[in-house]
């Protein structure tokens, strides 16, 4: 019974995550279509909403072709590893107050570790396909992921300096005073650029540059294993947007200053024992807040993809190592000085 419940708990997170991935793909196609003044998918379902499911069905029913010279086991293992590790990251995400699979005290470290392991899937898939394009794509992708991982983990280190805990829920709750977007605004920009690069999105999508490599590391993958890569890519986009909103935008905390509104309303009416008060309490840590913030960030991802041309690979690397990394390292020197100087070293104790 206990096992059944934990399996159900896992499914309760994974199935909506996959559903959201499906709708993110359709949202991307619709948004980019409207930015380029065309209609986008509009036949399957109302407003083209079921297009993603039709695509998935088509891909699953297609015949898969594996290259004869490929290492078949690794060829199929690569996409599976990538998908599994990009979905595992969801398990420590707090979706609302008390809505989580695991209240893990090293949650952020776990998320970092799991997201780095997904690189191996790409490396394996690209190498085992026995194709030059796939191999070059996987090499590029790995180099890019490893470089930008450095930026992301250094920024996370600075957020940890202000929270004093690796627990994701503690990080969200310690933003009740102020979202870290305000004191760490430049770091948010750096982290956001890093996340775009980390998910292999345009303008940093050198790993699957159609004009140079046919389709990058997934050139030889077709049908259902291609679905795995596709799902993994979008799942990691959604996850990194969730991580962005957790670290900088306050996760599931409300964006609206509810206590201010209550104080103003209390000047004129007595709202403390009304249903309005209950609704406000509910909104103050509702999953809807996280959803709104994440949706906005995903929109920015799509916006960036529709706006910027792809940069060269050497530019990609030099942006990472000579622009972003010096900024982050300067912050790594500065932030402890600020925290020590203001005397605000955070203390987190948990007593039973």
């Amino acid at each position, binding site marked *: 019974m206990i096992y059944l419940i934990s399996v159900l708990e896992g499914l309760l997170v994974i199935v909506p995550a996959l559903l959201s991935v499906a709708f993110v793909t359709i949202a991307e196609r619709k948004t980019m279509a409207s930015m380029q003044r065309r209609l986008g998918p509009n036949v399957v379902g109302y407003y083209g909403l079921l297009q993603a499911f039709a695509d998935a069905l088509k891909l699953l029913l297609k015949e898969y072709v594996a290259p004869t010279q490929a290492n078949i086991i690794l060829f199929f293992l690569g996409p599976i590893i990538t998908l599994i590790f990009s979905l595992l990251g969801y398990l420590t995400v707090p979706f609302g107050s008390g809505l989580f699979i695991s209240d893990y005290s090293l949650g952020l470290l776990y998320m970092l570790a799991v997201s780095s392991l997904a690189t191996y899937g790409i490396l394996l898939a690209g190498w085992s396909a026995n194709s030059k394009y796939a191999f070059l794509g996987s090499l590029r992708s790995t180099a890019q992921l490893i470089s930008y991982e450095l930026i992301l983990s250094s920024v996370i280190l600075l957020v940890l300096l202000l929270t004093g805990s690796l627990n994701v829920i503690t990080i969200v709750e310690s933003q009740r*005073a102020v979202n*870290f977007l*305000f004191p760490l605004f430049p770091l948010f920009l750096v982290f956001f650029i890093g996340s775009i690069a980390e998910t292999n999105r345009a303008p940093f999508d050198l790993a699957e540059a159609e004009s140079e490599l046919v389709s990058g590391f997934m050139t030889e993958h077709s049908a259902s294993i291609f679905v795995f890569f596709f799902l993994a890519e979008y799942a990691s986009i959604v996850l990194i947007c969730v991580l962005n909103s957790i670290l900088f935008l306050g996760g599931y905390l409300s964006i609206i200053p509810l206590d201010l509104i209550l104080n103003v309303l209390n000047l004129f009416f007595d709202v403390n024992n009304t249903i309005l008060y209950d609704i406000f309490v509910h909104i103050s840590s509702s999953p809807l807040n996280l959803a709104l913030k994440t949706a906005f960030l995903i929109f920015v991802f799509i916006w960036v993809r529709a706006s910027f041309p792809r940069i060269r690979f050497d530019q990609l690397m030099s942006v990472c190592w000579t622009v972003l990394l010096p900024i982050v390292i300067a912050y790594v020197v500065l932030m402890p000085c600020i925290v020590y100087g*203001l005397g605000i070293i955070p203390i987190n104790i948990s007593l039973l």
Partner: protein
Amino acid sequence: MPQDMPPVGGYGPVQYKRNIPARGFRPITYLVGMHLLMGYGYYKLFHGIREQNELAREKVWGRLHILPLLQAEEDRDQVRRHFADKAREKELLGSESKVYNTERFVRPTFVYTPTKVTQ
């Protein structure tokens, strides 16, 4: 046949940059604005973390003040478990046996858990 060489003096400059007028405020405005925003952020952060640390201090002192009570509760539980253990042993073996060759009370390193959890 002369090769297709660039003209003498090289090609003229290519006009690739669009000379569109600058929009928005001056850059210094954005820079100052960002720092004002960050200043507000650090102000709130300062008070927030100070309050959090004060709450942590209060929590620890609260725990320290009820420490004797917690200790007494724990000791009472220990005694209850000890006698229950002795009774169980007597029921199973018929007599009480001594594990250690000493008269001193040895704190047990094990705990019995019921086979059927009722709650």
